[in-house]
Every structure is written in structure tokens, then in C-alpha cells.
């Protein structure tokens, strides 16, 4: 009986490792997919950020700001004599 038992144990072990190999491979694939998804997401955020940067560049251009301040809001740079300086 002993040899047959031993064979049975080995067979069981082979089956177990086979299943775990499949399991690990599957898990690995899942993780790879997830990584890809996350990388795609990072890419999209990056592109979004690029777009926002471009937008910010267009809206906050110094030329545009000084034009709005001067013309539309009627602002002007104060003369130094109009500025009260507070020494700490």
C-alpha cells in the first residue's frame, strides 16, 4: 500500500502545483491589466494637465493681464510716492 499512497500524494501535489501555476499566471495577468489601466489613467491625467497648462498660458499671459487691468478695469501702477512703505 505504501508505494501507492506515496504516488497518490505526489499526484495530489502535482495537481495542486498545476492549479497554483494557473492561479499565479492568472493573477499576474490581472495585475498587468491593472497596471496598464492605471498607466492609461496616468497618461490621461498627464494630457489633461498639459491641456490645462496650455489654457493657463493663454489666459494668464502677461500681455492679456496688463491689457485687461489697464483697459477694462482702468487700473494703473501706483507711483512710488503714492505707496506707503512699512518697515518691519
Amino acid at each position, binding site marked *: 500500500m505504501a508505494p501507492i499512497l506515496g504516488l497518490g500524494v505526489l499526484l495530489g501535489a502535482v495537481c495542486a502545483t498545476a492549479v497554483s501555476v494557473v492561479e499565479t499566471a492568472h493573477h499576474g495577468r490581472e495585475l*498587468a491589466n491593472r497596471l*496598464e489601466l492605471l498607466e492609461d489613467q496616468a*497618461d490621461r491625467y*498627464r*494630457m489633461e494637465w*498639459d*491641456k490645462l*497648462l*496650455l489654457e*493657463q*498660458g493663454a489666459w494668464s*499671459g*502677461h*500681455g492679456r493681464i496688463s491689457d485687461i487691468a489697464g483697459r477694462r478695469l482702468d487700473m494703473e*501702477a*501706483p*507711483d*512710488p*510716492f*503714492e*505707496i*506707503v*512703505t*512699512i*518697515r*518691519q
Partner: protein
Amino acid sequence: MKERQPEPGYPMRLALVSVCLCTALGTLLWRVVDLQINDRAFLQGQGDARVVRTEPIPGHRGMIVDRRGEPLAVSITVASIWADPSLLDPDEVPLGELAASLEMAEESLRERVQAFAGKRFVYLRRHMQPAAAERVMELGVPGVSVRREYRRFYPAAEVAAHVVGITDIDDRGQEGLELAYEQVLAGTPGAKQVVKDRRGRVVRRLRTLRAADPGQDLQTTIDLRIQYFAYRELKSAVRQHRARGGSMVLIDVPTGEILAMVNQPSFNPNDRRDMKVAYLRNRAITDSLEPGSTVKPFTVAAALATGRYHPATLLNTSPGHMRVDGKTVRDHRDYGMLDIRDILAKSSNVGITRLALDIGPQRVREVFGQVGFGESTGTGYPGEDSGMLPSRRKWKDIQTATLSFGYGLSATPLQIAQAYATLAAGGVRRPVSLVRAAAGPEPWRVMEVKIANRVLGMLENVTEEGGTGTRAGVSGYRVAGKTGTVHKVDGKGGYAEDDYVAMFAGVVPASRPRLAGVVVIDGPRGEKYYGGEVAAPVFARIMGDALRILNVPPDAAGNRLVRRGTEPVARDKNADA
């Protein structure tokens, strides 16, 4: 079922069939073993070679930012569409649709594909918006693929174009800091393995071989706010005086950092269609010119250092011209007896010549060299000109004279600004820098404090009533500076009569120097061409803005300075008058 009858066999036939079947089976089995075991490595390799591809992962190039973190150059994601012409048959695919989505003419797309017919790779369109590229890919044209790339975008456009420089279409530095700091900025591309089908579509991603390594950000010393004002004022002055070009450099005296550096003409690095190579030159660093009268303060410093002269020492400049080695040194008019203070205020060539001839050329040359003329500034900017400071064993008197008022040597606007920053720092020379945290040499003293401060004090007279630089006055601040009007060399061994460079170099606030700067207007073609008329007002406007932005307290009499804790008196401006 029919009952079987033992029949006389055909043993030979059975044996033959058995042998045949076994041989066939054995052959098949052997073939299986051969393929699976013996040739496995070879076959797997061949298979992989057909489907597994190594794809680059682009490394993100570092940003260039100003001293406050405002971006000056950023890499934005773009998509480039490429095709494998061997898979792309122009007659089979909807070429018109593809061309439309690429925003190209159908004909030019067809030509492009046919021109590269024998190749496996051709860019159809580079640097598209990612969203537009997605629409192209949605057409599903076989053989057409997308590749992600980065394109450099310069939010400050032409305002900081010269300092920042540019990259080429492959994101490699070509000019300016982009080139000088290529090693720091450039990202290292990574690599990944993917499985692709015959049409070049990615089926499965296998693994990342190397992660992409992004480049580092580079922080410059530029203050974009000041840079913008400097650019605006310089541009309007160059236009107003119909000048050939101009430069402006502004240095933070306590640190030696360059806060602004602008040039005209400039270019828009985001749209290079109208760009000319000459526009790329950062004249403030790459072009040297004769500094003219702006070096006179340093001749005076050399004279004061001998101990034989004092700001009030009187010299006779009559009759307003003098012969030196058969050449004539002229003043605008006969100023008569002038003290050294007035020699600077009136910019008297005769007076400076008398000083220089008395103390000798070596002393003058030594001071010029110590404040940085004739040597590299060490900013590391590509194409820097170190200027030229002559060194001779025997000096003719005329050579001494011309040197003392700024001819016969050459300097870049940056070198002139550096010299004034040294004077402003009480004679301590701080290496100028364009990049923050760049380890430079320690500051060192090149001039006695007493002498530097005396010269600076005298330069205040230049901007006061009766001086040549009154237009450099900044409301609320004391300004020390010097005008310069230089005849340009005409290329025939002489100086052109009507081609000038107008300059103003100065320091503000004079009582506690914070900023040193120089304005150079090259070739003003209007009626005005003197440094005091053309360059000084630009200097005044830029410095006024810069001082306000940097919150530098005004030091001129008449300002309202309030100690913290005391009540600031609210008054309107009419009540002040």
C-alpha cells in the same frame, strides 16, 4: 448483428498494414517531439520575432521654470501618426477619409505613402493633438499606428525665448538653456515588450524592460514678471527709435542672479514659421560691442585707487578737445575746469583721457579685468562671447586714451551689467548666474568698498540735473548710472558717422543697491541716438517696474516710510501736491 465467423486471416496483409500505421504514427510522434523539444527554442524565437515587439516608452523632458516656479518650457503630450507602407495599400484603404482626419491633402498623403512604398516606417503626421490622433485611429486603417511623443511648449513665448532656447522636433535641446542643460533636462526613454498582430496593433503587453526616466526640472534665476516688463519696454523702444536691435540685462546685486535678460529682435518659439536664424541670437550674451562711456566709472575707480585723486579733484578739460598721438579726443563742448564728479556727469572724454594718461594704462586695464571685462562670465550659456580686453606690453597714448573711454575693447551687455553689479556690491564680484543652485565660485573682492561707494555716489550725479542721464530717473528712487553713445565700426577700419549704439548702465536704489542693469539699443535710426535719450528712459521704466514688483522700499527724499505699529496716514494724492 451478424455473427462473426472465424475466417482464414491474411496475416501478411495485417502485418503490412500494422507496420505502415505504426510507421506513420511513429513519424508523427517523432515530428511532434522534434518540434516540441528539439526545435523549440528556434521556433519560439521565430514566433516571437514575428509578434513580440520592443516599444520605446518616451521619457518626459524636465520643465524649465522661472525663479518663482512659473513654467517657461514644458513638454506636452502629442501623438504622431505613422504607417507601415507595406501594409498600407493606397488603393484599398479609404485614403480620403484618412487624409481628412490627418488634416492633410489626399494627394500629398498618397505621394508620401508611395514615396516610402519600399519601407516599413513613415510618419504621416507628427505632433497632433492626442484627441485628433484618437479619431484617426478610430478609422481602423490597417498599417496605421500612433506613437506618443512630447512637444515643447513655451508659455512665455518670445518674452523668454532667448534665455530658454529651443528644442528640435525630437525634443533635443538646440539653443540656449535647452542645449546647455540637455543632460539634466532630457529624460531617458524606457522600453516595453508587447505582442502585436500583423497589422501592428498591440494585442498584449508582456512586460516593461526599463521604466522611462523623466528628466529633471531646471530652475532659472529669471523672474518672469520682470522679464515681461523688460521685454515690453525694450520692444517698444526698439520700434520707436527704429533700431536694429537691443538688449537688456538686469542683475540682482546681493546674489549675482540674472533676473531678466531680453533681446530684440526675438521670436516665438511656439510658432517658428517666420523665424530667422539671426533672431535666435541671445545678443546680451553672444554679441560683444565696444562699451564706450559706460566704462568711464571704472577708469575713475582706477584713478581713485592711486590715492592721488579725489571726487573733488579739478582737471582742466579746455578747450574741449586734445591731441593724442596725432588723433583728436573730443568733448561735446568746452566744459572748462571740471572735478572728477562732473567729468562723469558730463561724460568728458578729455577729462577721462587726462586721468588715464596720468595713472597709466596698466592700472586702468587691471580694474577693467577685475570687474570682468575680457573674461567669460561663467553662466555656461552656449555661444557666449567673452569680449576682448587688450593686453599690451607697450601702450601708445592714444590706446590708453581710447581704452579709458571704452573703445578698443569689447564687452557683452551681460559683462557690462556684471561690472556695474560689482560696483553696486561695494566692490565684491559675484559670478552672475542664469540657473539657480548652480554652484559657482565664491564671491571675491576686487575693489575697496570706499572706492566703489565713492564711484557709485558720483554716478548719482549723472542722473541728476545737469548730468547726461537725467531721463534714467525713477520716481521715488535714487539712481546711479552712466550713459554711453558709441559709434559703430563701419567695417572699413573706421567708425561710422551716423551708426550708433545707445547705452545706459546703472544701479538702483543708489543708497542700498539692489538691482544693476544695462540697456543697449543698437542702431537707433530716429532723430535721437544718445544713450541718455534713447536707452536711459527704457532703463528708468524697467527699473521702476522691477523695484515695485520686488517691493524695494523707495530711498529718495519725499517718500512716506512708516514704521510698523505707527498709524499710516491715509491721504489722497491731491493732498500731497
